[in-house]
């Protein structure tokens, strides 16, 4: 599809994608450097202690996961707002249907958000796995990830740490994609590019506080994305939250795009 190719090109060549990637990479590299300075020489640390997703010794993990919605929306989430505001969408909507344009825009937003979150996490894991062995950390050792048997992928965490990291990198990337779609769905309602990019983060933070998890399970997006899993998430809760966010965004984008007046 020609319009999808155009939107992907625009998304991955945008300055905002580069900025988002640089922020994510900076946090991930700083985490690893700090970890190496502090524990690099001890020889007893393993991948799951060093990887930013499961490292809870430093604040970088929290920083990355709090900023995740912004890292997701920043690359291309505000582009529909910008296109409508500048009138660039006129150039496109005379050459393709509104629905195809909306689909291509959504796909580009989703994929760029996935990349801007997954690449820093992946690079951090790649470097960490070169420096530290992929053994299971001792359960009682200080700084060990507290993934218990009732948590998601507990067996994978013990037996295949690299796979555990990869699974969460993909999950985080997918959630970043659907969170970024929120920027698109609110584009018609907001009055600035900044609002379009930041509002999803506000939604995620407020909803996560309201739906904060307890021993019976967790519906909070912020908590369920963190591979440290300090709050137990059950697989169907994660799937439900993902599908609800995706469904609402897809519906809003479809309704608002279908007969949109391109002014």
């Amino acid at each position: 599809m020609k319009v999808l190719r155009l939107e992907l090109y625009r998304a991955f060549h945008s300055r905002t994608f580069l900025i988002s990637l640089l922020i994510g990479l900076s946090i991930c590299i700083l985490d690893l450097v700090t970890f190496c300075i502090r524990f690099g020489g001890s020889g007893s640390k393993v991948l799951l202690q060093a990887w930013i997703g499961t490292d809870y010794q430093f604040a970088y993990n929290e920083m990355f996961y709090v900023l995740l919605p912004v890292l997701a929306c920043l690359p291309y989430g505000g582009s529909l707002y910008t296109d409508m505001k500048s009138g660039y969408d006129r150039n496109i909507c005379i050459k393709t249907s509104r629905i195809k344009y909306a689909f291509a825009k959504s796909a580009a937003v989703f994929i760029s958000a996935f990349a801007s979150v997954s690449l820093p996490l992946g690079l951090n894991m790649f470097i960490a796995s070169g420096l530290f062995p992929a053994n299971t950390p001792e359960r009682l050792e200080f700084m060990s990830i507290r993934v218990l048997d009732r948590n998601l992928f507990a067996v994978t965490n013990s037996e295949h740490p690299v796979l555990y990291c990869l699974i969460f990198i993909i999950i985080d990337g997918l959630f970043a994609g659907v969170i970024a779609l929120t920027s698109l769905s609110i584009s018609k309602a907001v009055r600035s590019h900044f609002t379009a990019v930041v509002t999803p983060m506000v939604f995620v933070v407020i909803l996560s506080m309201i739906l904060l998890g307890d021993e019976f399970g967790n519906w909070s997006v912020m908590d369920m994305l963190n591979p440290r899993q300090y709050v137990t998430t059950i697989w169907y809760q994660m799937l439900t939250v993902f599908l609800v966010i995706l469904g609402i965004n897809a519906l809003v984008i479809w309704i608002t795009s279908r007969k949109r007046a391109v002014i």
Partner: protein
Amino acid sequence: MSEIVVKNVSKKIKDAVILNDISVSFSSGRIYGLKGKNGSGKTMLMRTVAGLLIPDSGSVVINGKTLHKDMSFPDSIGILIENPAFLPQYTGFKNLKLLASLSSGISDEDIRTALERVGLDPDDKRTYRKYSLGMKQKLGIANAIMGEPDIIILDEPINALDEETVQMIKDVLLGIRDNDKLIIIACHDREELEYLSDVIYEIKDGSVIDRKEI
């Protein structure tokens, strides 16, 4: 060969009547001028014909196909409506190349030709951000005429252009018309509009009040 028939089109935006039961027709090989005061509905009519605005009632039929029913957008159209809008980080050529990628059969040579016809240098390395107002307008026209689409819609195309360029654009448009293309143009300058147009529709309060053959 193109024919556009606008049948009893009405459009309201926030309770304001923008187009009021308007019926006009356009056919290829001619330039149609739209005349009227600001807010009379010229631009909205252009948007409706381009498929950017969906009418509340009535229809726009292009070559026998009804817009938004048989097709989502006209098959071959170039537009410049209000301000030209391009990506500021790219050159003029790159901008047109990106937009040309949405159409079939527009080559790099066609893009270069379109830029040269409006007096822009295809090899200019300046980004759109650094273009003057006149250059932006020229790029907007180049985008509309790139690949010589069957229908060209231009809203105030000679705004911000110097006399020499205006003459150049007029010659280009007359040349395109002679290639059996359909051109709809809105312009505040009555003399220029009459020089260019074969037919002039006068629009007032969203309705056509006069049709004049030149």
